[in-house]
């Protein structure tokens, strides 16, 4: 029973976040629990935070999980850990691209153009290149163990850059993105003039997307592990 119920819970949670994120009104003086505050310069655009920020958050979570399992692989030399790390990197890449694309669409209307080399955009682009190289590295090595070891070491090194690119660099540099150093009306992204209801929906959204990520990740690494097991069984006959 518990096995299905968290999936139903996830469905209801994300459905609620979608409805609340789109339909709840933005007013100047919010009183009711379902009203969001008006943020000057962002207005209705501010609602993107419920869908764009979770994708960026999942990028970090996925790359972190991938690093943890890379480390585990280097210690245990168990190829299952490599499958887990690899599928997490794949998912991180998917969400990294989503964060970039949704950010660009939003930027078109908030800043006037899809791409303006804002510090935030530059850093996520660098991150895409760094982790993109991992896939090139993997596809160029034939030997299973060598491939796993090299990509584990690479992803350990690559993750060192993630906190700088996601959390530090865009906050200490001047830029257009909410939360930049010279941002007067916003401030650090999470507590920018959000009221309780906005924070509630925001954190519900983060929780929902995180559960979704772990679900997708589990499905993904299981297929890789089963394929490997099958391959080995067929070869040994």
């Amino acid at each position, binding site marked *: 029973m518990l096995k299905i119920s968290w999936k139903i819970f996830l469905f209801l949670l994300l459905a609620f976040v979608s409805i609340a994120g*789109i339909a709840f009104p933005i007013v100047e003086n919010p009183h009711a629990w379902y009203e969001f505050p008006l943020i000057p310069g962002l207005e209705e655009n501010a609602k993107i935070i419920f869908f764009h920020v979770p994708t960026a958050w999942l990028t970090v979570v996925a790359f972190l999980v991938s690093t943890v399992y890379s480390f585990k692989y280097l210690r245990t030399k168990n190829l299952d850990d490599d499958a887990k790390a690899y599928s997490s990197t794949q998912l991180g890449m998917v*969400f990294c691209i989503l964060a970039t694309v949704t950010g660009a669409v939003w930027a078109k209307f908030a800043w006037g153009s899809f791409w303006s080399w804002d510090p935030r955009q530059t850093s996520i682009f660098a991150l895409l290149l760094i982790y993109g190289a991992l896939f090139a590295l993997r596809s160029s090595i034939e030997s299973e163990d060598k491939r796993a070891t090299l990509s584990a070491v690479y992803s350990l090194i690559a993750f060192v850059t993630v906190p700088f690119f996601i959390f530090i660099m865009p906050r200490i540099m001047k830029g257009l993105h909410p939360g930049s150093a010279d941002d007067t009306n916003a401030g650090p992204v999470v507590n920018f003039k959000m009221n309780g209801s906005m924070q509630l929906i925001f954190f519900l959204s983060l929780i929902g997307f995180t559960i979704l990520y772990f679900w997708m990740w589990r499905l993904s690494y299981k297929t890789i592990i089963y394929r490997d097991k099958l391959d080995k069984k067929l070869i040994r006959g």
Partner: protein
Amino acid sequence: MESFLSNNAIYIVMIIVLIVWAGIFFYLFSLDKRIKNVEKELKEGVKNEK
């Protein structure tokens, strides 16, 4: 089109939700393909054993 969207910013949010959904859908699609390959391999393996 552009002025309509900047006057009705909620549709931008809608586009963004659609993009996120499309990304998740694309991922599931490729996962499905991977599972199909495993299934095929399994079937052929069983055949060869016979």
